[in-house]
């Protein structure tokens, strides 16, 4: 088993303007090997399958346990987290590409800062008065906690956005992850003070109406966040908010 080898094909691109090329690698397999640890092997011995020296691969990764959200990429065509993509479960050659909807930096590294900008635009926070001691927080019943906790598990990997047919420059769609955070903060007893602002932020171009309900997001989410439920709920709230704003003139 120790002699088993694994074939990889990795899409390389030296810079945003450079041409993309595919490189093949043959690596020794070991139990538990995943796509990120395979790239660590390449860094220690940067040689392609045909024996040509190459550069270590540039990619994002940090925690290696699918909680930091860094290492999202396309593996055999699927947007997913690379550190939990176990080699033994993948068809070979394992084809690894960067996410497709984000500006490329180099190799498998892309720039996903748009998500953080979107989170700022929808005020995805609870406006506490200050960090000094103001006593305990609002009561929250376990049923509410259990409803909100899954939304709070979003690791900002952006897989949901990468697979969304509507997430592109044409629509400027914010994507499912941001909408789920709007639901989370609108549910919070203090966070809901910005509910109207958040809904209005999702009411215009690139807002929630861009969603075509392809449902790719919920199928792809590595944390099984109920994204389509969130989109439905927030969509309803946005329509009500629009109606209210219309009647108020």
């Amino acid at each position, binding site marked *: 088993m120790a002699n088993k080898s694994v074939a990889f094909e990795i899409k390389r691109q030296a*810079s945003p303007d450079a041409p993309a090329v595919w490189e093949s690698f043959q690596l020794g397999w*070991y*139990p*538990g*090997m*995943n796509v990120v640890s395979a790239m*660590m092997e390449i*860094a*220690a*011995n*940067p040689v392609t399958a045909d024996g040509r*020296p190459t*550069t*270590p691969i*540039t*990619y994002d*990764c*940090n*925690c*290696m*346990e*699918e*909680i*930091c*959200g*860094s290492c999202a990429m396309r593996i055999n065509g699927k947007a997913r987290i690379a550190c*939990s993509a*176990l080699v033994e479960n993948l068809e070979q050659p394992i084809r690894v590409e960067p996410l497709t909807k984000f500006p490329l*930096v*180099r*190799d498998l*590294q892309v720039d*996903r*800062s748009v998500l*953080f900008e979107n*989170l*700022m635009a929808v005020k995805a*926070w*609870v*406006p506490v008065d*200050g*960090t000094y*001691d*103001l*006593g*305990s*927080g609002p*009561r*929250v*019943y*376990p049923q*509410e*906690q259990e409803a909100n906790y899954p939304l*709070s*598990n979003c*690791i*900002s990997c952006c897989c949901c956005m990468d697979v969304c047919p509507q997430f592109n420059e044409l629509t400027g769609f914010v994507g499912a992850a941001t909408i789920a955070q709007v639901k989370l*903060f609108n549910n*919070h007893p203090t*966070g809901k003070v910005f509910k109207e602002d958040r809904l209005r932020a999702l009411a215009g171009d690139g807002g929630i109406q861009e969603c075509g309900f392809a449902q790719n997001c919920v199928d792809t989410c590595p944390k099984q966040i109920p994204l389509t439920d969130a989109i439905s709920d927030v969509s309803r709230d946005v329509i009500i908010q629009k109606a209210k704003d219309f009647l108020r003139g």
Partner: protein
Amino acid sequence: MAAPRIIVVGGGLAGLSAVIKIAEAGGTVDLFSIVPVKRSHSVCAQGGINAAKNLKGEGDTAARHFDDTIYGGDFLANQTPVKAMCEAAPAIIDLLDRMGVPFNRTPEGLLDFRRFGGTLYHRTAFAGATTGQQLLYALDEQVRRHEAAGKVRKFEGWEFLSAVLDSRGAARGITALNLRSMELRSFPSEAIILATGGIGAIFGKSTNSVVCTGSAQSAVFQQGAFYANGEFIQVHPTCIPGEDKLRLMSESARGEGGRLWVPRTPKDPRPFNQIPESERFYFLEDWFPKYGNLIPRDVGTRAIHKVVYEMGLGIDGQPMVYLDLTHIDRATLDRKLGGILEIYEKFVGEDPCDVPMKIFPGMHYTMGGLWVDYNQMTNIRGIFAAGECEYQYHGANRLGANSLVSCIFGGFRAGPNALHYTHGLECPDGDCGDASELARQADINSRLLHNKGTENPFKLWRELGETMTKHATVIRYNKGLRQADEKIVELLDRYRNVNLADRSQWANTSFAFARQLYNMLQLSRTVVLGALLRDESRGAHYKPEFPNRNDEQFLKTTKASFAGEAAGPRFEYEEVDTQYIKPRLRSYDATN
């Protein structure tokens, strides 16, 4: 006059806590982080955060928390800051609750608490088994709010290289490397707060994230900062073994009733469910009847080593023991431990609700770190430190769920103290050392890029990790520690011949890694030599040749300073503040 500008390096819990306090007090902050701050290593903390809220009618108090923490740390921690932390902890939990952290709740809607190691109280608040993630996100959201208000600028994707020091040795800014454009730049500031986490990477495989190299701590250590208690490294009893990393299996699994056991018969070939109760050895419950599976981590780790290596009882003869949750109902496990069970299932392919997990100890936490005073300032004026990168709160062994509270408390102190420090700071003369520090860094970069050696930095790193894990983790012998230091010196020598497979000037990860590696090597020596000099056993530092604690000689903080590349670290010792609790023998094997 413009608001004082403070640089915070590191966007985990400690760094973000400092940022929030500074922004709130009217200061402005430049926040530097290798990764987007929401991806910092704090996200990996699982089990919970301690505070003596006493919501379970047990009579828990901050004083009990203080005593458990000091005792758990084998009396090495200075008591004044630890006492302050334990007293502040309940209000920190309240604050996090107000910020929207989805803590688990009681039926009445109050915070739920569970037990953790080294205490007999339900003192740990938790959000499923992803508490660190939830806390980090809450602080990240608050920082984003301050960012929107223009009080915080983020420099994500920049790596700290060094402090800029003026002619009087005080900090005046930093130099940093842009990890995409590879641009080297200096950034002026009136104070710096380092919140750069642990040093797991010097052990090769650990529970830490990839960015936890200790490179920043090592850089300022080489610039004159003391590094304290470096020899105290926590090895967590329960990790999922792996070739690439050791994935943490939270202590909360035992807090919720998980039991460690091995078959009583060596290499018993039967599957777990065919081994009757009478033939299972629940070794922690047997050896530590009062605390059972919830002994502190150093004690648990040594017990597993004994079972596996001395008694030969590892599962299938392998270095692994069972962590069993199968007697607990699935709904409870999902509600309280969901996140970690999912990790196990994803990486091992077995459902821990049905099959006991196979675990083994792994390097987890850095108790030592930059020496700081009670205001969180290092001995370099204007450089503060908070969180795992400093040494102050955990003594010789950290109790589970105390790290999150120490990060936030430390950050909450460092922020305002740094701001206070900048008041009345004299206007610097000239460029405050900026140009010379930039030139020094540019020189290091240039030499590295043009080096024509043969050594691959990733391979050197693997050798370092193997040496450190072998000689400087659970059981330490002076002979082995000496060998380890010789090996590190050899690696430092070979580092001169390092050859980058990539010499490009765009998103060159080999280059960034090679710079970290040098700092890792230098810091490793403080760990190994600090351990060599401490001829006693205390907390996580265990020498079979010196099995007892020796307060007369070693109830002291180790302080390492850098004496140059050739001489390496130099050591001195400082008295420990024990003014509140008199040191007593530490033992968890009492029966009642």
